[in-house]
């Protein structure tokens, strides 16, 4: 399968959108584009599985390389493995759902959908890139639309949030770029030539001194995207100010770019340094998990609740990566997917509530289950998924991370695991508090009695995301089969430790 299609399709969609003005036309094109993306990603999954079943055990399948800027060794190299396929699948789900919930975006609809689709192109490009420069390029493509989406269509203190997000993510990008350059100059493919080629770098071993300098730089850079404590502060403001679809994209896709980068680039290419810095990663991840959970308890705004809980949940991703063993890393990948779907669903539900009640403050909501049973049920289900209920994806991912991290008998790791486990109790507290007040209980505002339940587009968006969550939650084995062999492959590199 030609991976370029994954980038070409959204780019073409985005261009097509520019030719139209009316909301009705624009959204239709965007929907078609999203459905094409979705189909492509399903096809990709299908052909990838077929390829693996045929015994293609290459680390990267559907490999292709186009020269881009030869003097600097930059090429448009693409290829996927199980991890990136699952990330692409996640993106396709979130994009389609995001387009569906933005169905009534009246304000500057052309620009809105254009940016939305462009963002997805960036995400796909990022996940298929096997060239560090191209990877960075797509990372940037995914950042800029966010700034505009929040700044123009956002709510609340949107300018502040947009600026904060853009500045922090730009700083993150700068770190990432620095890290990538460090890797670049440490390579040598003859005649003093350097390369950005991912596979080539993974085969050479980067000198330890270089690793020790550039691992933290690259990890922090990607970590900023993935809400690494203490660089998470853009997350709550950014998510809460963004319009619904943008929140879904931010939490569902963008934060995953960070986690993916931490794993694929920083940890995989510089494994020895990863072992050196692992305790610090774990420390920060644990702080993020616990701090995020407790901070969520203090929030009164539904979007802030979900945003802070994202900090907590993304901590599991970094925790899993920091544990540097197969089970935990597989868990981290699952958590990325699970969190992407779940949090998108949660934001979608919150967006639907906000659109109707014009408030997101828990105190001003109550008894919504009576007036809008569908939306309320979705809200409760995403909450239950968030607190790790079996049958939903969150449970699978979290338990895999826990099982993986318990394999280290050292005290620090044990304490980190126990604290992370403890966060699921705190999660239960804040989820039930929010749901108990806003969804259950008596109706607080008489005007809410006349509100209508979800429309067809909202229902389909919710069902789409929910199906992903439930499929993973009920039958995690297929996801496990998809990603485990490749996590196993990563371990060949990551398993390399500093000293024998």
């Amino acid at each position, binding site marked *: 399968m030609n991976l370029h299609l994954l980038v070409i399709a959204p780019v073409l969609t985005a261009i097509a959108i520019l030719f139209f003005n009316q909301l009705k036309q624009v959204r239709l094109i965007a929907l078609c584009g999203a459905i094409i993306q979705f189909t492509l990603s399903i096809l990709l999954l299908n052909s990838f599985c077929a390829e693996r079943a045929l015994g293609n055990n290459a680390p990267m399948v559907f490999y292709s390389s186009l020269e881009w800027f030869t003097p600097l060794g930059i090429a448009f190299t693409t290829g996927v493995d199980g991890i990136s396929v699952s990330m692409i699948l996640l993106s396709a789900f979130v994009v389609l759902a995001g387009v569906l919930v933005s169905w009534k975006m009246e304000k500057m609809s052309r620009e809105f959908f254009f940016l939305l689709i462009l963002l997805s192109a960036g995400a796909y490009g990022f996940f298929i890139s096997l060239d560090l420069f191209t990877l960075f390029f797509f990372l940037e493509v995914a950042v800029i639309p966010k700034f505009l989406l929040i700044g123009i269509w956002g709510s609340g203190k949107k300018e502040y949030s947009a600026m904060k997000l853009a500045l922090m993510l730009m700083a993150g990008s700068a770190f990432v770029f620095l890290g990538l350059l460090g890797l670049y100059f440490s390579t040598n493919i003859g005649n003093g030539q350097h390369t950005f080629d991912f596979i080539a770098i993974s085969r050479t071993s980067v000198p330890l001194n270089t690793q020790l300098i550039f691992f933290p730089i690259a990890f922090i850079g990607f970590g900023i995207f993935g809400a690494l404590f203490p660089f998470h502060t853009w997350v709550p403001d950014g998510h809460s100010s963004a319009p619904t679809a943008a929140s879904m994209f931010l939490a569902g896709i963008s934060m995953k770019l960070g986690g993916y980068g931490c794993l694929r680039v920083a940890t995989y290419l510089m494994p020895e340094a990863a072992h050196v810095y692992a305790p610090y990663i774990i420390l920060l991840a644990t702080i993020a998990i616990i701090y995020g959970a407790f901070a969520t*308890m203090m929030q009164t705004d539904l979007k802030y609740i979900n945003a802070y809980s994202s900090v907590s949940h993304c901590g599991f991703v970094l925790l899993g990566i920091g544990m540097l063993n197969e*089970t935990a890393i597989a868990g981290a990948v699952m958590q990325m997917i699970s969190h992407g779907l779940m949090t998108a669903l949660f934001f979608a539900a919150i967006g639907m509530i906000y659109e109707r009640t014009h408030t997101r403050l828990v105190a001003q909501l109550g008894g919504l289950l009576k007036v809008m049973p569908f939306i309320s049920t979705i809200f409760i289900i995403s909450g*239950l998924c968030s607190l790790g*209920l079996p049958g939903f994806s969150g449970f699978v991912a979290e338990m895999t991370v826990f099982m993986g991290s*318990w394999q280290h008998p050292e005290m620090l790791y044990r304490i980190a695991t126990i604290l992370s486990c403890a966060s699921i109790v705190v999660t239960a507290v804040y989820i039930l508090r929010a749901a108990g007040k806003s969804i259950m209980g*008596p109706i607080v505002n008489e005007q809410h009695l006349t509100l209508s339940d979800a429309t067809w587009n909202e229902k389909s968006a919710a069902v789409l995301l929910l199906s992903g969550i439930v499929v993973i939650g009920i039958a995690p084995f297929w996801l496990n089969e998809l990603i485990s062999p490749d996590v196993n492959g990563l371990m060949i590199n990551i398993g390399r430790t500093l000293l024998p």
Partner: protein
Amino acid sequence: MSLANTIQLILLLPLGSFLLLGIFGRKYLSSLSGMIGTTSLLVSAILSIQTAFQYFFLNVSESFEKIVAWKMTWLTFSEGVSIDMGILVDPISVMMLVVVTVVSLMVHVYSLGYMKGEERFATYYSFLSLFTFSMLGLVIAVNIFQIYMFWELVGVSSFLLIGFYFEKPSAVAASKKAFIVTRFADLGFLIGILILGFEAKTLDFVTLIERLTTYNSSYLVSATTASFLGASALTWGLLLVFMGGAGKSAMFPLHIWLPDAMEGPTPVSALIHAATMVVAGVFLVARLFPIFSISCPGALEVVMWTGVISALFAAIIACTQTDIKRVLAYSTMSQIGYMMFALGVSGYGNEVGLGFTASMFHLFTHAFFKALLFLGAGAVIHYIHSNEMKDMGGLRKSMPITHITFLIACLAIAGIPPFAGFFSKEEILTAAHHANPMVYYIALLTAGITAFYMFRLYYTIFWSKEAKVSHHDDHHGEGTWIIKIPLLILSVGAITAGFIPFGTFVSSDGHHLHIPFALSAAILPVIIAVSGIALATLFYKNQNDRPDKLAASFQGIYKTAYHKFYIAEIYLFITKKNNLQLNCTTLCLGR
């Protein structure tokens, strides 16, 4: 049908009914939903009884084996460590299948009448089905993680059902409390699983038990030597797992959610918070019993004391409560305490394992009479429109069937022969007598208190002063037959369940255990129970001021017990104080 298929069907029926009613029920199947749920449960119950018959009576071998009827790998963590979904058939799981499906069926039938006219009728039945499915999945689990998963599902269905009347803030608060307290306990369970799984390198029950009970096996040696804070990894693991069990079974000090859980519809309390879910903790300890008993008697001792303390503590509180459902809730806690300490005093194998059999026996009989008590209480509440004792009295004439069945249940729980509770309680007391005299005397005392408060309840509802029933809708009276039939069926269970030679079927090691009936051991408990009843008769049969005088003369104790020993206040103090500090930390770190 093979054993595996039958049991799969037993589970799939409630699951199917949950999905069907949950997705389509509200719009399309509203009137049919009760029948759909009940029919699927009826089939499940018949199949369960058939399974039990097949397993217990068509078995030719000397002992009952643990059979893994079906198993699939659900999620692999690493080599040999995986979550499996499967069906483990052994005496306790088969017994639980029967208990769960039968009680659930009774509740389903009863709810047809009790919940009639409820707007969210279909939702109610879908939640009931979800609960039944989860509970069944829990009892047949082959893998400790499987049990944990269904454990959580049971918790969430309990949450949904307690909060069924979601517009009532007290119901919402109670459902949150129940979920969060048990979730906190489950944290222990989860870490316990991590420890046990790490030590035994497996999560599979059969292998896990084998590895951790084989003398001098490398797993056992490493699990018992590695120590933290003076206890071995195994002890920690088991204690943490037990913490999960104690939370679900409302053992002291994690019991605070149970009385509040009575906010749910009464049939739900009968099913979840009396007969099935709350005994999950006992079941969990029973499931891991060989490890507790053979490899870690220290942890078993903790189980025993937790049980004893809970039994006595709850019985004392039950004497002072005025809400009839709360009295029953505390009595449930007390009876589960009995089951727990019966496991605690038991050994493994042969006659030493009497406690195990007794515990399971009590679980079995208790399910019948406690469900009966709750359903009876439900009928009363339905009639009076109040939970408070002070609004009741003299109902024996207007509700004859409820009266008789309630009396049977009271006699059963008080331990009067020949009702079911007598036999199981007598076995527990015998086991305790052999093991630990201290426990024995506390248990005897508790038995006396139990008889007292149950008959306090009985007399204030059915005798004493006449209640003022101010009905506009006098027509329903005691309720329709659909409400009475489950009461009658359960009372048959409460009368006859005791005659089952339980040891023949359920014992700690699977071998038949013949338990001789010792008249001499039975006399003392009966005398104590009768005197408890006599005392209650004196105080409560006719309206008088004796109870108030007594309460006044022991004011300190009475007040403390009335306020449930201020445990809730202590919790509140701890969590609120922490909240305050956290507030500050979060404010400093945030933004």
